[in-house]
C-alpha cells in the first residue's frame, strides 16, 4: 500500500500581479502642495532659524545649526517633492510605498516647516524631542496594555481608568511612604485591580467588553474624584504631596550628543518603559507566553483544543496589561512630582487606544504611534513658544489633526486579532 502522495504546498500558489495603491504618494503630494502654498503665501525672507542641538548640561556641546530660512525651506520643499516622486515610483514598480519613505518625508517636511515657522527664532531640538518622549510615556504604557489585552482577545477600553487609578494610587502611596518606588508598585497593583474587574466581568460574566471598559472609565473617574475631594484634599500635606522620581543619567549613553540627554537622562519610569517595550515584543513573538497569548486572541477554540486554558490565559494577561497601564499612570503624578488632581489623565487612555489600532496591534508600531502623537503635541507647543503666526487653538488641534490624517491617509484599514472582543464560551 502506498500512502506516499506528494502534495506540494506551492503547487497551487497562483501567479501574482501588482495592485497599486496611490494613496500614499497622493497624500504626500497634497502635503507638499500645502507647504508650497504656505511658503508662497507667507514668505519669510532673509531670516535665519537656529536649531539648538545641545542642552545646557551636555558633556559634549554640539554647535547650533543655523539655517537660512528661505533656502532651507525651499530645499525641503524640493526634497519632499522628490520623496513624493520616490513613493510614486515604488507604487508603480512594487505596488506599495515602503514605510521609510513616509518617515523620511515626515522628517523633511517637519524640518522645513520648523525652519519657516521659527524664522528668526531658536528651535530647541533636544527639548522638542524630550517633550515628545515625555508626552508619549503614559501613552506607550497604555498602548502596551492595549496590545496585550487585545492580542489575548479582550478589548481594553479601560486603559484610561487604569492610568487614572495608577496616577491616584501612586500619588497617595508615594505621599504616605515618601518613596516613589512604593507608589510605582502600588500603581501597578491599582491598574491590576481595575483590570481584574474588567477581566471578571468580561470573562466570567460575559458582559460585553466595551461596556465594561467604558463603564470602568467612568467608575474610576468617579471614585478617584470622590476620594480626592473627600480624603486627599483635606489631608493634602500627608496624602497628596507626592515625591518625584529622580532622573538617573545612564553613564556614557547620556553623553551622546542630542539623543543622550533625551533618552538616557530619564526617570526609572522611562527606563522601565524601554524594558517593557522590548520585553513585550520579544515575549509576544518569540516565547511560549506570546504564542499562547496570540492563540487565544486569534482562535480561542483552537487553543482550547490543544489544552490551553483560554479564559485563564486571558484573565492573567489582562491583569498584566492592567499593571502596565497602572505604571503608566505614575507619570502623571510621581513622574513629575505633581499632586493628584481630578481626571488628570485627560483622555490619554483613549489616545493610547488609538495608538494600539494605529500601531496595528504590534508593540513596536504602537510605541511609534504613541511617539508620533507625542511629537505632534510637542511640536504644537514648541511652535507656540517660538511664536507662530497661527492662533494657539489651531496649534493645539495639531496633534489630533495629524492623527486623523495619518490614520486616514497612511494607515487605513488594519486587521485586529480575529477573536478580539469575542468572549469565549465553552460548551
Amino acid at each position: 500500500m502506498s500512502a506516499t502522495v506528494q502534495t506540494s504546498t506551492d503547487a497551487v500558489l497562483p501567479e501574482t500581479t501588482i495592485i497599486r495603491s496611490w494613496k500614499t504618494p497622493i497624500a504626500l503630494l497634497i502635503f507638499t502642495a500645502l507647504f508650497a502654498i504656505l511658503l508662497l503665501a507667507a514668505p519669510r525672507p532673509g531670516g535665519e532659524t537656529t536649531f539648538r542641538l545641545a542642552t545646557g548640561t551636555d558633556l559634549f556641546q554640539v554647535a547650533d545649526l543655523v539655517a537660512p530660512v528661505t533656502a532651507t525651506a525651499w530645499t525641503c520643499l524640493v526634497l519632499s517633492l522628490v520623496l513624493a516622486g520616490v513613493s510614486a515610483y515604488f507604487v508603480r514598480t512594487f505596488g506599495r510605498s515602503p514605510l521609510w519613505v513616509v518617515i523620511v518625508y515626515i522628517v523633511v517636511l517637519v524640518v522645513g516647516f520648523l525652519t519657516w515657522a521659527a524664522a528668526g527664532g531658536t528651535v530647541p531640538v533636544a527639548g522638542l524631542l524630550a517633550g515628545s518622549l515625555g508626552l508619549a510615556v503614559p501613552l506607550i504604557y497604555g498602548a502596551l496594555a492595549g496590545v496585550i489585552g487585545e492580542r489575548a482577545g479582550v478589548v481594553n477600553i479601560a486603559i484610561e481608568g487604569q492610568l487614572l487609578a495608577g496616577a491616584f494610587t501612586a500619588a497617595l502611596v508615594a505621599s504616605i511612604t515618601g518613596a516613589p518606588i512604593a507608589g510605582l508598585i502600588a500603581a501597578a497593583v491599582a491598574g491590576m485591580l481595575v483590570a481584574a474587574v474588567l477581566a471578571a466581568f468580561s470573562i466570567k460574566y460575559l458582559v460585553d467588553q466595551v461596556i465594561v471598559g467604558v463603564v470602568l472609565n467612568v467608575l474610576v473617574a468617579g471614585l478617584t474624584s470622590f476620594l480626592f475631594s473627600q480624603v486627599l484634599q483635606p489631608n493634602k500635606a500627608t496624602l497628596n504631596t507626592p515625591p518625584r522620581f529622580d532622573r538617573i543619567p545612564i553613564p556614557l549613553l547620556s553623553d551622546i550628543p542630542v539623543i543622550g540627554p533625551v533618552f538616557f537622562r530619564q526617570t526609572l519610569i522611562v527606563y522601565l518603559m524601554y524594558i517593557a517595550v522590548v520585553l513585550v515584543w520579544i515575549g509576544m513573538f518569540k516565547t511560549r507566553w506570546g504564542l499562547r497569548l496570540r492563540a487565544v486572541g486569534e482562535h480561542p477554540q483552537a487553543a482550547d483544543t490543544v489544552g490551553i486554558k483560554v479564559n485563564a490565559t486571558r484573565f492573567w494577561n489582562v491583569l498584566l496589561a492592567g499593571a502596565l497601564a497602572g505604571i503608566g499612570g505614575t507619570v502623571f503624578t510621581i513622574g513629575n512630582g505633581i499632586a493628584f488632581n481630578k481626571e488628570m489623565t485627560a483622555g490619554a487612555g483613549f489616545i493610547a487606544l488609538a495608538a494600539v489600532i494605529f500601531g496595528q496591534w504590534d508593540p513596536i508600531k504602537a510605541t511609534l504611534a504613541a511617539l508620533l502623537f507625542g511629537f505632534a503635541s510637542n511640536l504644537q507647543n514648541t511652535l507656540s513658544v517660538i511664536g507662530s503666526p497661527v492662533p494657539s487653538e489651531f496649534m493645539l488641534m495639531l496633534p489630533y489633526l495629524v492623527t486623523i490624517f495619518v490614520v486616514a491617509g497612511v494607515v487605513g484599514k488594519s486587521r485586529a486579532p480575529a477573536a478580539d472582543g469575542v468572549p469565549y464560551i465553552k460548551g
Partner: protein
Amino acid sequence: GCASAPESSPSGSAGGEAVSDFKPCMVSDAGGFEDKSFNQLGAEGLEAAAATLGVESKKVESGSESDYAPNIQSLVDEGCKLVITVGFLLASAAGEAAVANPDVEFVSIDDMVDNDFDGKTDAENIKPIIFDTAQAAFLAGYAAASYSTAGKVGTFGGMNIPTVTIFMDGFKQGVEYFNEQKGASVQVVGWDGTDGVFTGGFEANQDAINAAQGIVDQGVDVLLPVGGPIYQSAASVIRDSGREIAMIGVDADVFETDPSIGDLLLTSIRKGIDVGVEEAVTAAGEGNFDAAPFVGTLENEGVGLAPFHDFESKVSADLQGELDTIKAGIIDGSIEVTSYLSE
C-alpha cells in the same frame, strides 16, 4: 476605634449651632474648590467670614456649565441667604437667579454680571467683585525684568481667557515699562499681547510641563505660569533644568500656600479674592449688603505683589523702592496699565 466616647453625644448637625439664620453659600466653577486658585481663595474667604459671623456656610462644586444654574437653585432651595458665584462663567446663571430670587443676595466674582451689555449690573441684589490684576502683574513684570540676567522672561497660561490673560497683559507691560525706564531690552516669551502659549486646560499635566519646558528652553530665567495648579508643572521643569530660574505665583501668595516650592518663588501676584469675599460676606451677614461693584486695585489692596521672601537678597536693592514708586504712579494714574477691564 477603642477610644472612649465623648461625654455628651454630639448635638444635632456637625459643627456649632448657627446663631442666626444667615447662610452664606458658594458655587464654584468647573475648577473645583481645590484649584489652588480663585475657587479655593473664594472658599477661604467664605469660611473666614462664616467663622467670624458664627454661621453655617455651604459650598457646592460645578462639574460643567450646565450645573451652574441648578447648583444655584438648589442652594436657594436650601435656604441660603447669600450666594457667591465664582468665575465669569457663572455670571449669567447668577444674573438670572438674582432676578428670579430678589430676596436672596448674590456676589459674583470675576464678572460684572452685565449680560445685557448696558454697562450696569443686571440686578439690584447682586454684587460684582472683580480685580484689575493687571496692575499687580505690572509690578511683577517690572520686578521680573529687573531680576532677569538673561534678558528673557516667560509666561504661559491655562487658557486664552481674560481672567488669565489679564495677568500676562500686566506682566508684559511691566517688562516694557522697565525697558523704557532702563533702556533695557528684556524680552517676554509666551505672550504677545493677543496670543501666546497655553496648555489648553488647568491641569498640572504633561502638556503644562511641555509648555513650561518650551519656554525654559528659550533661555528665560523668570517664569510666570497663570492658571490653577499648572505652576506645579512649571516648578517640576525648573527643578529638572538645573538652572537658576525664578517663578512667579498667581492669585495667592504661593510661598504661603505651597511652601514646597517656596525656594523658587521670586514673588506672587496676589488677587484678593479671599479678602473681597470675606468682606462682602461679613457685611451682608451684618445686614449691610451693598450691590456696588468692588474692583480690586492696588489702591484698595484688592490686588498686590507678595513679598520676595527667599529672594529678598537676590533682587537688586533698589527694586522695592522702584516698585513702590510705580505703585504710586499706577494709583494716581500717571502710569497707565491697560487690560480688558479698562477697555
